[in-house]
């Protein structure tokens, strides 16, 4: 029995490692390609170099694109924080019954495929008084709706864990007005949920392509659109771009996980 169990354990482990290897292989290939001087006719690259990374990180167009991506994501997230925090507070403190309705509403952006909703957005904001297709503004607004579910869920969980009503009541009986109670007592206790929500949404938005390409395209290039436009240039250069992007998101995800762990 023990031998069986052990061989079973060995077998399970082998499957998991194999799966891991298969998943990592393309990434490892890309990493190696981005570090190769050239790699075409041989089994292994002919030499290793950092020149593609140096070329990438000294390319002004890439740096601009990176900054623009950051700007759009941070803008969208700022907008969501400013709008969602008070909304959540009002829903949970004054109208807890609305929570069920909100849960359906915030999923709507996910219910419609991005290709379909971007056609609608193009119609609506392509001309007329609200014409902003091709500007970062439409992307910020659109990304706000995508970030909504992440933000709402994460902060709701946090709110439910802190017993909002009793904390507010206690603070008010001790002489705080609603603003003081919200800022001094509730907000500091939402910090962790908020950070997790922000990092999750950021990782997701930073890699968004469909909306960015259809709504704005090259007029305000973001990282994924840039990657798409560069697909015909050097593969080594593109690999360096993919790995840089991946590393950036990986670090962010790691930070998000760390914060999540502190919470439990």
């Amino acid at each position, binding site marked *: 029995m023990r031998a069986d169990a052990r061989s079973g354990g060995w077998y399970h482990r082998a499957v998991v490692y194999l799966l891991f290897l298969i998943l990592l292989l393309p990434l490892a290939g890309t990493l190696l390609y981005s570090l190769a001087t050239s790699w075409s006719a041989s089994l292994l690259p002919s030499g290793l170099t950092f020149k593609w990374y140096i070329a990438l990180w000294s390319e002004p167009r890439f740096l601009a694109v990176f900054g623009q991506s950051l700007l759009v994501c941070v803008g969208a997230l700022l907008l969501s924080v400013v709008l969602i925090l008070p909304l959540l507070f009002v829903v949970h403190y004054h109208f807890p019954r609305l929570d069920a309705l909100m849960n359906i509403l915030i999923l709507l952006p996910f219910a419609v495929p991005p290709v379909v909703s971007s056609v609608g957005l193009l119609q609506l904001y392509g001309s007329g008084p609200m014409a902003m297709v091709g500007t970062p503004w439409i992307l910020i607004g659109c990304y706000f709706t995508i970030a909504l579910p992440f933000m709402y869920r994460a902060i709701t969980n946090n709110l439910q864990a802190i017993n909002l009503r009793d904390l507010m*009541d206690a603070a008010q009986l*001790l002489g705080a*007005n609603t603003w003081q109670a919200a800022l001094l007592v509730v907000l500091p*206790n939402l910090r962790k949920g908020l950070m997790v929500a922000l990092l999750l949404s950021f990782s997701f938005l930073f890699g968004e392509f469909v909306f960015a390409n259809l709504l704005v395209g090259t007029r305000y290039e973001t990282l994924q659109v840039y990657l798409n436009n560069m697909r015909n240039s050097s593969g080594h250069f593109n690999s360096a771009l993919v790995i840089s992007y991946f590393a950036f998101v990986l670090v962010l995800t790691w930070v998000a996980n760390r914060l999540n762990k502190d919470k439990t």
Partner: protein
Amino acid sequence: MSFVSVQKLHKSYAGSPVFENIDCRIERGEFVTLLGPSGCGKSTLLRCIAGLTPVDSGQILLDDHDIVPLSPQKRGIGMVFQSYALFPNMTVEQNVAFGLRMQKVKTDESQARVREALALVELGNFAGRYPHQLSGGQCQRVALARSLVTRPRLLLLDEPLSALDARIRKHLREQIRAIQRELGLTTIFVTHDQEEALTLSDRIFLMNQGRIVQSGDAETLYTAPVDLFAAGFIGNYNLLDADSASRLLQRPVTSRLAIRPESITLGINGELDAEVRSHSLLGNVIRYRVQVREVELVVDVLNRSPADLHADGQRVSVSIDPTALREVA
């Protein structure tokens, strides 16, 4: 004029009344308890007095001033919650100081008062800890200190002991009562636990279905329940319908009868023959179920020595103190 006077208070949720026409008076320095089953409206009444739940109509006079139009901040009322409601992001000291900070009390004075309040609940050494580093009993003592430090005119306690285990509950309730006496603080305590109510209160308001059923001191409530609900909720009364009561007493009885289990004596030479059906040991008391004239009675006997124990099935006799019989509506 009473210190707290609730007059004709109405409150309903979505059309159905939580309570109607509540009237009660509380004297200065009194410790009163709102006792009742869950859903009887006692917590809502407490929240209305605190100003956390708006009332539909009626008046709440505190020291002769109607406080209904005032916001909770301006009522000068302290409250302790079942969930403690300590601020998790603040240390014990910051929690206790919060009320003084809102009142813009100077730092020196605030520090002195916080120290004093923490000493009162015997938590002087815990000032730097965070709530998650404290036990439930300690959390509730911090909450108590936090509501006392602002020197409220009235202290409200909303089932403060319900989340604690039995031993700590007993200790803390004695501590609460001692502090209340020391400060002479008018206090309203809400509980569904009759033992808590009986041991702590100067006066008890027994509530059921949005009404105050009976009010009085512990003695009155225990020995003279006004109706079936009061008899059923307090103590472990034997409640007999008219038929059983007539059979037991061998005379016509027209209403229901309540008999306290400790007012019945078990012996060898009693008035009525009986048989022990079962018994259970409650510590200092043995609770017997005995069959007398086809009526089953619960009898509590002080557990003096194992030799006195009556076995199940044993023939015994019982005597009932006639002054302990109460007819209830």
